[in-house]
């Protein structure tokens, strides 16, 4: 298993990955992304959490400043940031990846099953069951108390 550990530089090695071949092949992050590659959905999943480590700096884009403001007092997911800052998810991934490289935010990403990319086989078993039984049971107990 090549599962990564939570929060360990999820997007830091964004250039050494082959993942982008499969993720949303027609996506063109534009404008604020400035042509930079978006961290893949495996690196920065929708539910990955972001927290500010820095206050907004002069010269930062409006989007960066807003993300730092929103996450100054607690964690927010990539999906929530995308919605609040009104950036499409692939673009939000680029911006958050940049902030992470600058040390302005930290990211806590769930350990996701690695995508199986056996050269385009028809049977793409991308989904691997959540194998943490205790976690599932905690979720079950939690939902039951709602």
């Amino acid at each position, binding site marked *: 298993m090549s599962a990564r550990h939570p929060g360990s530089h999820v997007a830091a090695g964004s250039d050494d990955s082959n993942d982008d071949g499969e*993720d*949303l092949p*027609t*996506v*063109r992050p534009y404008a604020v992304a400035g042509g930079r590659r978006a961290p893949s*959905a*495996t690196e920065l*999943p*929708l*539910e*990955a*959490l972001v*927290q*500010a*480590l*820095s*206050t907004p*700096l002069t010269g930062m884009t409006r989007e960066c400043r807003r993300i730092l403001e929103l996450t100054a*007092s*607690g*964690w927010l*997911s990539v*999906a*929530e940031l*995308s*919605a*609040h800052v009104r*950036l*499409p*998810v*692939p673009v939000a991934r680029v911006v958050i990846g940049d902030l992470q490289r600058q*040390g*302005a935010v930290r990211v*806590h990403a*769930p*350990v*996701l*099953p690695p*995508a199986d990319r056996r050269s385009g086989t028809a049977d*793409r*078993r*991308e*989904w*691997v*069951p*959540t*194998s943490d*039984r205790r*976690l*599932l*049971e*905690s*979720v*079950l*107990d*939690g*939902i*039951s*108390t*709602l």
Partner: protein
Amino acid sequence: MASAPSETALEAAPTTVKIVIAGGFAVGKTTFIGSLSDIEPLSTEAAMTEHSVGLDDAGGRDRKTTTTVAMDFGRIALPGNLWLYLFGTPGQDRFLFMWDDLVRGAIGAVVLVDTERLEQCFAAVDYFEQRGIPFVVAVNCFDGIARHELDDVREALAVPAHVPVLYTDARARPATKQTLVTLVQMAVQQLAA
């Protein structure tokens, strides 16, 4: 780097889990999410697709159209510093390519069904069944009225015997909660199997 936020803000990150809410257009996915979510359901553009549509009649240039795909979602805080995200799938079959992102690492999926438009959920049932993803079929009872027997729905969708088919009411928290309980129980069972 500028000054850091106060140390107290750097609390341990919650553990995040997610469940996918699938189904056809306007079947009640966002209502379902809203019945349980701690936050007002949010909407984001989950992806952009661009299509070059060839020569533009007017200018003779390549014209590109960008389609944005909206996705609604919500969040539920559970005891033990757990955050459960509910992600609604974009409503049209042609966005199935996006679902891989949504389901990777998910506990499973709820396929929300409107029996008046049963065919709208075929693609979702196919998708989860082919990948062995735990899912339940939840028949949304509009106005509290069940218009079809669950056995008829099961037969029409040809879902395997181990897949629960149940009634729900997307507006009613007890019903949507029970739907999620049924799904997670199934995921636990599938793990044990």
